């Protein structure tokens, strides 16, 4: 072992001892943000710690927000490590530790369905390297060559003599060995833990109230804060009359937060919120005070015919194809703003002193949270730390912005030495989202006399997420993410259809409403626009929607395979039950190929029932098939909530929906049966947390057309009359 490694390990032990309250996931001990636990177990490498009782702790840079990421990554490490799966647990290193150790745990961001597909390689190698070191340590102990030893379930056996020892016994010696330079990874077809439908590691705590979420954090001497920011986007705080509420029960302080918010700090959150509701506040509403959904729609409509656009995909001469078509079809679609509505509202706990700032929070990107905390604290990153807790939902909100961390730190800074837990009310959460962006699309298709699609122009008009959230990601002003799933090539999201004359372009129109990454991101509307329009084209051409798509997908066998799989399983082309109608959709995004066939009925009064959706996904490698099925169901519930109910509207510069009474979420009675086909074809790694969301809404809309003859081109369905045309 080199001196440098020694130092970094010692640094790690010190910082983790200080941080262990947040480091341990607390599967055994309920985390109470309490005092440090001694970190004495040997670290084989950054990923693997083996305790004397044989517990294997897998350290994970990504975070758990419901998608089973922790379990999947632990499966991959355990697979290579050859340990006993029943003894595996996980923990989070902190972003401060990651910085101190040259980002040994890689990227902490958990978004874009990247939790597994972007970290499987280094994590599997971490497991394999640890296995080699543990076997070597056992061999050294016996004075035999490592090549004579084998391991199964954490028990090392010396073949010639039959002697055995365990990982727990040799861990200390292994931790002192030089890590191997090269490791061999298993062929996935030999997997026994990965690829299997094992149970999640984090379930038991979620059944008895013992899992501690960020909103549950307790710190000694902690006070609670409730906050209100100017409800008009871009508005500022003008004044407030603290004297009116300072005498109310429990109130300790009323503080301004940045230039646009005010918070009440009290002994309990309920008392803080009660005082905040009674606090007279004046806002300076600023330039957006007249912004409305109508004015935004006008702005987007203009973009549908604008001359200046960014091109996403182009082939042939689409103008000529449309001009020379035997038949053209034209339609305008739209997709309204959506809110993330994580069940756990935004919150963070912060402790600030002159020389240190600590934050406890739920984040999809703890390194970004740390940077935000440091800048708000006015301290170097090295004097700040963020402790992660499992998320009560993320869906992109807790990756897009750490505004809630900034606010908590700014409040704590005004009460040095006192930990402050700031919680947003549901209303605050609803009014200060980073919303799924708003777009419209105009599609024009050209059919020849035989009903073949000879040309397609898809014009998207609307908001770019990157232009607001990450302008460095723009390419000469163009937002490449606008074209998710519509790209000519690449590994993320390729358009499956081969159309000789094609133009997909974007007129960027950015209303002053903060946009964010919302589960599935731009694939949601891109799939809806294109897959519903494909259905329109098929009907205009007098062709079966499945056959029509199949012909256009001949050059993309993976796209075709998932579509064929759902069609076959759903019985496309065979009679559906009385009154039930089917619709199809396919799409590729986040590296995975997905398709759905929905079955719906619509009664005389126009009431919709979604009976069943058959879904297929080819995600390359399936690390945990039963969790993939859970993600298919979960993503459908999220996507269908948007289709059925989801619409954020604006009036006078403010969001009009403040809670679940006006922004309804799908409940059990609306949830369809879901039949999943997980069909990994094996030579790539695609995502699973998001991709299936893309196809739920267009498949249902196409089935509604089949049932009613009505083309619904913009959600939510709550606004539509579905009675038969």
């Amino acid at each position, binding site marked *: 072992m080199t001196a440098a490694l020694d130092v970094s390990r010692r640094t790690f032990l010190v910082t983790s001892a200080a941080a262990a309250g947040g480091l341990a996931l607390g599967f055994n001990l309920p985390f109470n943000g309490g005092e440090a636990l001694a970190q004495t177990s040997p670290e084989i490498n950054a990923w693997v710690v083996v305790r004397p009782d044989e517990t294997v702790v897998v350290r994970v840079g990504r975070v758990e927000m*419901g*998608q*089973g990421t922790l379990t999947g990554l632990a499966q991959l490490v355990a697979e290579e490590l050859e340990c006993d799966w029943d003894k595996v647990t996980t923990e989070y290193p902190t972003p401060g530790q990651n910085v101190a150790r040259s980002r040994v745990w890689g990227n902490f961001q958990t978004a874009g369905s990247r939790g597994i597909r972007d970290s499987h390689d280094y994590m599997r190698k971490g497991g394999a390297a640890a296995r080699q070191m543990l076997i070597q340590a056992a061999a050294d102990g016996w004075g035999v060559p490592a090549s004579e030893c084998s391991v199964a379930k954490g028990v090392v056996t010396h073949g010639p003599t039959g002697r055995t020892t365990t990982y727990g016994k040799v861990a200390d010696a292994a931790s002192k060995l030089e890590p191997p330079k090269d490791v061999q990874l298993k062929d996935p077809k030999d997997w026994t833990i990965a690829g299997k439908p094992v*149970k*999640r590691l*984090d*379930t*038991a*705590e*979620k*059944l*008895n*109230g*013992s*899992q*501690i*979420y960020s*909103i*549950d954090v*307790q710190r000694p001497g902690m006070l*609670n804060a409730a906050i209100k920011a100017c409800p008009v986007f871009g508005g500022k705080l003008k004044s407030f009359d603290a004297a009116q509420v300072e005498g109310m*029960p429990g109130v300790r302080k009323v503080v301004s937060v940045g230039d646009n918010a005010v918070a009440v700090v009290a002994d*309990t*959150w*309920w*008392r803080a919120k*009660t005082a905040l509701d009674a606090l007279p506040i004046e806002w300076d509403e600023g330039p957006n005070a007249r912004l409305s959904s109508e004015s935004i729609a006008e702005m987007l409509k203009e973009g549908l015919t604008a001359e200046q656009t960014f091109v996403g995909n182009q082939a042939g001469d689409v103008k000529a194809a449309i001009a020379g078509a035997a038949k053209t079809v034209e339609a305008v679609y739209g997709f309204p703003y959506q809110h993330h*509505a*994580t*069940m*756990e*509202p935004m919150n963070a706990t912060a402790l600030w002193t002159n020389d240190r700032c600590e934050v406890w929070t739920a984040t999809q990107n703890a390194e970004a949270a740390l940077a935000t905390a440091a800048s708000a604290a006015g301290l170097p990153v090295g004097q700040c730390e963020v402790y992660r807790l*499992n*998320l*009560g*939902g993320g*869906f992109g909100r807790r990756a897009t912005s750490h505004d809630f961390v900034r606010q908590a730190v700014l409040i704590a800074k005004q009460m040095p030495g006192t930990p402050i837990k700031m*919680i947003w*009310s*549901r209303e605050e959460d609803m009014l200060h989202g980073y919303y799924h962006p708003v777009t419209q699309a105009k599609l024009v298709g050209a059919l020849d006399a035989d009903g073949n699609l000879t040309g397609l122009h898809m014009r998207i008009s609307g908001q770019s997420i990157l232009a607001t959230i990450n302008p460095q990601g723009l390419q000469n002003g163009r937002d490449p993410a606008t074209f998710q799933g519509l790209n000519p090539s690449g590994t993320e999201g390729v358009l499956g259809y081969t159309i000789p004359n094609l133009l997909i372009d974007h007129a960027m129109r950015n209303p002053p409403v903060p946009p964010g990454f919302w589960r599935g991101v731009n694939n949601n509307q891109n799939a809806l626009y294109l897959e519903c329009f494909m259905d329109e084209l098929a009907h205009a051409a007098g062709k079966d929607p499945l056959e029509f798509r199949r012909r256009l997908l001949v050059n993309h066998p993976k796209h075709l395979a998932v579509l064929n799989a759902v069609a076959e399983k759903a019985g496309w082309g065979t009679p559906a039950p009385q009154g039930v109608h089917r619709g199809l959709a396919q799409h590729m995004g986040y590296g995975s190929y997905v398709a759905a066939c929905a079955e719906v009925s619509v009664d005389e009064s126009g009431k919709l029932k979604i009976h069943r959706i058959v879904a297929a996904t080819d995600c390359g490698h399936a690390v945990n098939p*039963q*969790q993939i099925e*859970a993600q298919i*169901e*979960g*993503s*459908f*519930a*999220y996507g269908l909530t948007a289709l059925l109910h989801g619409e954020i509207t604006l009036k006078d510069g403010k969001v009009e929906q403040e*809670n*679940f*009474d006006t922004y309804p*979420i*799908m*409940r*059990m*009675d609306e*949830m369809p*049966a*879901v039949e999943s086909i997980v069909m990994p074809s094996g030579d790539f790694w695609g995502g699973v947390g998001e991709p299936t969301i893309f196809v739920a809404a267009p498949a249902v809309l196409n089935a509604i057309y089949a049932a009613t003859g009505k083309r619904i081109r913009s959600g939510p369905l709550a606004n539509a009359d579905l009675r038969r045309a």
Partner: protein
Amino acid sequence: MASLTINGTVHEVDAEPDTPLLWVIREQVGLTGTKYGCGIAQCGACTVHIDGVATRSCSLPLSAVTPEQKIVTIEGLSPDTSHPLQKAWLELDVPQCGYCQSGQIMAAAALLQANPNPSDEDIAAEMTNICRCGTYNRIKAAIKLAAAQSRG
């Protein structure tokens, strides 16, 4: 000072009479398994039992609860996570983020108490709690599994 009986223990709490029971449970009593989701009786994350009835505690003021009423929270549903529903939830790996699950399990427990053999329709009609992660189908399957196992 008000007196509450929660999970078999009497707690003296210092809170204004109009404080929602949810926040008394979370902040004064310190039991954080009961969750805040909306505060307006829409989502069910705050569901507890009061004398066996599933109740959305965010919308019930402290003054409406008497010391004699028996409040049960998720922490008190069983001493060792052995309630048939908790076992079924574990068996079927129901939770995703888990945030809604305390409320879901408490709502389901009251449902089974009243109707030990619910149909799919009964379950869909009674289980109106929101799960943003979309675990509904597994929740339904777990309720049926628990009902079947309780029948023996």
